[in-house]
C-alpha cells in the first residue's frame, strides 16, 4: 500500500544560495530515528515537501544517499508552498514524503561508464546529489565531466563545493556564466557552447542533462556532432504533481507519468512522447 503521510522532519539549517535571495537550501533532519534509517533514495529522485496548512510540492533531492544524516532540498521561491517555506526558520517542523520517482541509473546504465553531467541554473540540485554519490563510489565510474552554468556568478548554487570540486583531479569541472562579470575569471558562455567545447567522446559514456528546455534543446546538436546518441542522454522532466505516486494523473506527459515512470527518461524515450512537459 502506498502512503500519503509525510514523515515529520525539522529544519536543521537554511542556506541562502543565490544573490537574489530566491534560492535557499533546506537541511532537514528526521524526527524519528527509525524513519531516518529506513529512508533510501537514489540521486535523481524527488520528494514531496509538505508544510501543514500550505500544501505539498515536488522537489528534487539535492543530497546524496552517501550523506545519510540529513536531506537537502534547494527550493526556489515561486508559489504558495515555496513562499511559506522561505519564511520558515531553523528548528521548525515540516514534512517530507518520498523518495519518489525512478532516479538516475547509477547502478545500471551509468556503472563503469564515463559520466558527463550538464546542468543549467537551479536544475543542478539532483546533479549535485549525483556528483557526490559518484565521488563516494569513484572506482565504479570512468571519467567524470561536470558542466554547470548560471546567469551570473552570484546565481551559482553550492559555491563552496564548486571550489572543492575544482581542486580535485578526478572531476573535470567546467563552471560558466552567461556574460562577463566583475571579479569572475572563469568560463563565460552558454552551457551548450561550453558543452560542445569540453564534452568527451561518446564512447562508453552517459550524459545527464538538467536545465531549462531551451538549454537542453541547444545542448544536443554539439553533442550529436561528436557522435552522441539519444540513448546515452538522460533528462529529468517536471510537471505539476499532487500525489507523486502515479495515482492523481496530474503529471502525465501523454501516456507516461513523470512521477512514477520518471522523472528521469532517456532522450529517446522523451522524443517518443507528446510535448506535454
Amino acid at each position, binding site marked *: *500500500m*502506498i*502512503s*500519503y*503521510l*509525510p514523515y*515529520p522532519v525539522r529544519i536543521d539549517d537554511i542556506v541562502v544560495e543565490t544573490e537574489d535571495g530566491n534560492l535557499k537550501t533546506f537541511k532537514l533532519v528526521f524526527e524519528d530515528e527509525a524513519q531516518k534509517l529506513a529512508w533510501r533514495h537514489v540521486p535523481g529522485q524527488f520528494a514531496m515537501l*509538505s*508544510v*501543514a*496548512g*500550505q*500544501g*505539498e510540492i515536488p522537489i528534487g533531492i539535492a543530497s546524496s544517499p552517501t550523506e545519510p544524516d540529513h536531506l537537502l532540498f534547494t527550493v526556489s521561491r*515561486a*508559489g504558495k508552498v*515555496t513562499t511559506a517555506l522561505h519564511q520558515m526558520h531553523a528548528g*521548525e*517542523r*515540516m*514534512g517530507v514524503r518520498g523518495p519518489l520517482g525512478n532516479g538516475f541509473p547509477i547502478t545500471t546504465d551509468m556503472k563503469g561508464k564515463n559520466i558527463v553531467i550538464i546542468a543549467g541554473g537551479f536544475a543542478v540540485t539532483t546533479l549535485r546529489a549525483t556528483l557526490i554519490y559518484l565521488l563516494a563510489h569513484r572506482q565504479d565510474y570512468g571519467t567524470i565531466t561536470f558542466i554547470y552554468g548560471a546567469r551570473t556568478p552570484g546565481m551559482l548554487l553550492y559555491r563552496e563545493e564548486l571550489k572543492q570540486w575544482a581542486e580535485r583531479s578526478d572531476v573535470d569541472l567546467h563552471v560558466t556564466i552567461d556574460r562577463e562579470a566583475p571579479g569572475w575569471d572563469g568560463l563565460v558562455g552558454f552551457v551548450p557552447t561550453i558543452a560542445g567545447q569540453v564534452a568527451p567522446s561518446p564512447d562508453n559514456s552517459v550524459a545527464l542533462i538538467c536545465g531549462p528546455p531551451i538549454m537542453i534543446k541547444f545542448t544536443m546538436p554539439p553533442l550529436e556532432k561528436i557522435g552522441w546518441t539519444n540513448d546515452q542522454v538522460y533528462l529529468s522532466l*517536471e*510537471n*505539476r504533481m*499532487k*500525489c507523486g*505516486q*502515479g*495515482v*492523481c*494523473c*496530474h503529471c*502525465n*506527459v*501523454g*501516456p507516461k507519468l513523470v512521477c512514477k515512470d520518471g522523472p528521469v527518461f532517456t532522450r529517446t524515450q522523451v522524443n*517518443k512522447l*507528446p*510535448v*506535454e*512537459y
Partner: protein
Amino acid sequence: MQVFKLSQAELDSMIRHFGSLGMVYTPAAGKQPSARTDCAPGWQPADGAPLALATGPSATSVKTFFFPQPETMQTFSVKNNYPDRGLLREPETLTEKQIVVGLRPCDARSVLLNNLPYREDPYYQANMARTVLVGFTCDAMCSTCFCDRMGGSPMATEGLDIAVSRLDHGFAAEILTARGEELLAGLKLTPAGISELDELAGRRQAAPQADAAGLDALKERDLNRLYEAPLWQQLGESCINCGACTFVCPTCYCFDVQDEVVRGTGRRIRYWDSCMFPLYSLHTSGHNPRGQKMQRTRNRFMHKLKYFPDRFGPFSCVGCGRCVKDCPVNIDIREVMGDLLTVE
C-alpha cells in the same frame, strides 16, 4: 452461487433489512444536493419506500462511495505553541459498512476499473472493504447507453455483490460474493426454481452482449498518430472545458489535494479534479504544458481510450453515457471513438 426469487414486497423488505447492517444508499431522482450532508448529490439514504429505478444509470455515479469528495487524508494543527504543530496525522480508517442499492452494471464495472490505478491507495481500498454493492441489471437501455461496446452488458454482474434482475413475475437476486451472502444472512428467501433460472438465463442471452472487438483495434493504433489526428482541433473548438463530463464520469478518477485550516485546525483533503481545467497542469513558473483548450479535450479522450488501456488493459470507459447526456455542447464519446478508428 445462489439465486433467490423475490416479489416486489420481498425486495423492499430485503432493502429495509440492509438498514440494520449499515448505511444504505439508493439513487435519488436527480442530481440535486441531498438535504443530508452525509450523502453525495444524486444519492439518498434509503427511506424504506419501494425502490423505483429509472431506466439507465443513476444520475450521478457510484464513484462517490469509493472516492468521496472531499476525502480527509490527514489532519493537523497549526496553532502556535502547540507541541504537535505542523505534524500531519492520518484520520481513523472508516469501517462503517455502506450498502449501495440500485446501481447499474456499468457503474459496478467502473469500480473495478478504478481499482486498477487505486490498487495501492489506502483510502480507496478502505472504501472497497466497507462497501457492498447491490446492483440492478438493465432490462432496457437508454439512447445514450453503450456499455456493450465498452466490454460490458446490461445484464452483466461483474463487480457486484448481489445482482437483482427483473423477471416476468418479480425479481431474481443472484448472490455473487461472500459479502453479498452476509447481507442476506438470517433472511428467509425462496431459492429460484428451474423456470426462474431459465428465464434469467434467457434474458441474459437476449441482452446485448459485451463486444469490444470493434474498439480493440484502437489499442493497436500508434499513439502518436492518434494524438496528432486532425479531429482534436475540431472537437477542441466546440468543447468549452466545463468539466461536466469528468465529474459525472464514473471512471474519471484524478484528484487535487489542498490544505484547509479553520482557526488553527486543519485537514489535508483530496477531491475530484478535472483535466479540462487549465490549472490542472499549470506550472508555478506560468508554463502550461496543456495551455490550449484543445490539448485538454484531447487529453481526456486519449486518457480513456489510449493511455489507460496501454497501461492497464481495458478502456477507462464503461459506456454509461452520462457524459453524452450532460455535455452542454453535445460532444459524444461514441462519435469520437468512431472518428479515432478511422485515423490511419
